[in-house]
């Protein structure tokens, strides 16, 4: 009798000991998450403390300067915006078209396999390799020089896999009944795609495009590799103005700088005053990329909640 009670006691102790491991691991998991949270808080906090004093209207409307307190990010944010325009104009049509082809049209053969392997592989290629591709091909091969066009095309190729994968996933989520309904009414494949598949997958595609653009706007390495200048104290010509009037697309061939390069330039200087500028530029950059990411996450969340086929 006493032995049985002792046994039960032992078993209870064993269970309690095992349950303690559960608790311990939960705590460990929280702790690991906290490392991420703390890093993020430190990163954001440090930049805010350092850079907040530099964030004024002048900071956005001044060109870079040798005097740290007069330097601004005008040419950088204008450059980033223009490069993003070219990037979007490249990556969105190509990526969506490729995604549609792979999901709706592609026959099962070795060519399709080859394309799919390439998309997967390109997603894993380091961004600086794209920079080397652009340096050899766009800058010297096609003679586009170190222009906004070169940078936009490079970043467009870089985020192409992101857009393709997002498009495919969005299309795959559409039930077959929608296609069958359209075909039953005599629609052709393209009519089905353009009138049904594409509109219904638009929100999903948009999420991918925003995430891709957020990545492109923060990319530094490929843009440095093509030889973007770090000190630009002028803006690309505005279409149809000036004397003689600039052409509609003259700006795409203009030299440029972008936000991350401006930040890199300021970070790598020894003077502490420039580090404040770097912090302020970093703050702007992080707020931009994070709000884009947050927007994408929100759209996806809404999507999951609202669409019930």
């Amino acid at each position: 009798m006493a032995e049985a009670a002792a046994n039960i006691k032992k078993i209870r102790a064993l269970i309690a000991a095992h349950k303690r491991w559960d608790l311990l691991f939960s705590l460990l998991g929280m702790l690991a998450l906290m490392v991420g949270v703390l890093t993020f808080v430190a990163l954001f906090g440090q930049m805010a403390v350092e850079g907040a004093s530099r964030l004024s209207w002048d900071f956005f409307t001044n060109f870079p300067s040798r005097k740290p307190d007069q330097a601004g990010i005008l040419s950088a944010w204008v450059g980033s915006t223009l490069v993003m325009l070219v990037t979007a104009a490249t990556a969105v049509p190509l990526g969506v078209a490729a995604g549609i082809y792979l999901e709706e049209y592609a026959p099962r053969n070795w060519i399709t396999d080859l394309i799919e392997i390439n998309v997967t592989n390109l997603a894993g290629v380091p961004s600086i390799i794209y920079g080397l591709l652009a340096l050899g091909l766009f800058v010297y091969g096609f003679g586009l020089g170190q222009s906004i066009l070169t940078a936009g095309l490079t970043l467009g190729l870089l985020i192409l896999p992101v857009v393709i994968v997002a498009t495919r996933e969005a299309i795959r989520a559409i039930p077959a009944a929608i296609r069958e309904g359209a075909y039953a009414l005599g629609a052709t494949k393209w009519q089905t795609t353009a009138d049904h598949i594409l509109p219904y997958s638009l929100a999903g595609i948009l999420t991918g495009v925003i995430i891709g653009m957020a990545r492109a706007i923060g990319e530094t390495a490929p843009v440095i590799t093509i030889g973007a200048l770090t000190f630009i104290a002028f803006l690309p010509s505005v279409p149809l103005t000036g004397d003689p009037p600039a052409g509609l697309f003259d700006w795409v061939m203009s030299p440029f700088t972008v936000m991350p390069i401006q930040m890199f330039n300021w970070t790598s200087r020894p003077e502490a005053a420039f580090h404040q500028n770097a912090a302020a530029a970093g703050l702007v950059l992080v707020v931009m990329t994070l709000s884009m990411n947050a927007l994408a996450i929100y759209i996806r969340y809404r999507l999951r909640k609202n669409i019930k086929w």
Partner: protein
Amino acid sequence: MNAIPQAHRIYAVTENFVSDRLARRRLRHGKERVIEFVLFLAACVSVATTIGIVVILLKESFIFFQQVSLWDFLTDTQWTPLFADAHYGILPLLSGTLVSSAVALLVAIPLGTIIAIYLSEFAPFSVREVAKPFLEMLGGVPTIVYGYFALLFVTPLLQKIFPGLPGFNLLSAGMVMGIMIIPYVSSVSEDAMRAVPMALREGSYAMGATRFQTATRVVTPAAFSGIAAAYILGISRAVGETMILAVAAGMQPNLTWNPMEPAATITAYIVQVALGDLPHGSLAYQTIFAAGLALALVTLFFNVLGHMLRKRFRQAY
């Protein structure tokens, strides 16, 4: 008597109608073929990009290796292409890359795995809903910002612990890089763990196992190839990372295995050369393509390995 002409007339109308429809169908068909071809071309851009990368890297490296022997490239212990006494040994750059990646993985693999197990097996729904987007955001911070953080926050902090630590070092760059890689490791590992069928967990619980025992002895082994794929993706990320190292680890090639020293990586070297104004076609210009080729081969190896492992874990159930 009347019936014949009427039938004839109907026939004629139908024939007319059919040929009209046929013409429209042919037009429609032609348009469809054109659209399909255009879409196909768009899909081929990814293949063209790969071919472009391979051709450019091989072409420029080929010119480079005509002047520098492959043997020197692989065995020389100095990398000084920009000096008068030029040496072209990839080893110093490779050691910088490997040491910084090792530091990053020592941070990312334990933390990433713990987070993945926690989120997949332990965390309540509400925690997961908050933590996953947060991790995604952590992966979305531009790398130049991480570089700034490593140089101006983590390094001064580490210097308080290790007073002799130089301003540029592989340790702080590697640690920050590790934090950056956590989301990649944790999300792929978690996907692998979630792909483990519920029945396995239920079986384990039915035998009286606790959550911890189920997670470590049933789910993790079952998802092993997926978790390994996550690690390998993390490695390939670390090897290809550029800006954190260019900013925080210095750009001085240094054959060392000590993370407390400054050193250049393959990627940092490419940035350094691109920042200077090198004439197109010079030997120093070609060195960045040779370095890029080495980098591409290393990451390709890891990507293929990761792809194979992921395929295996998908087929398992």
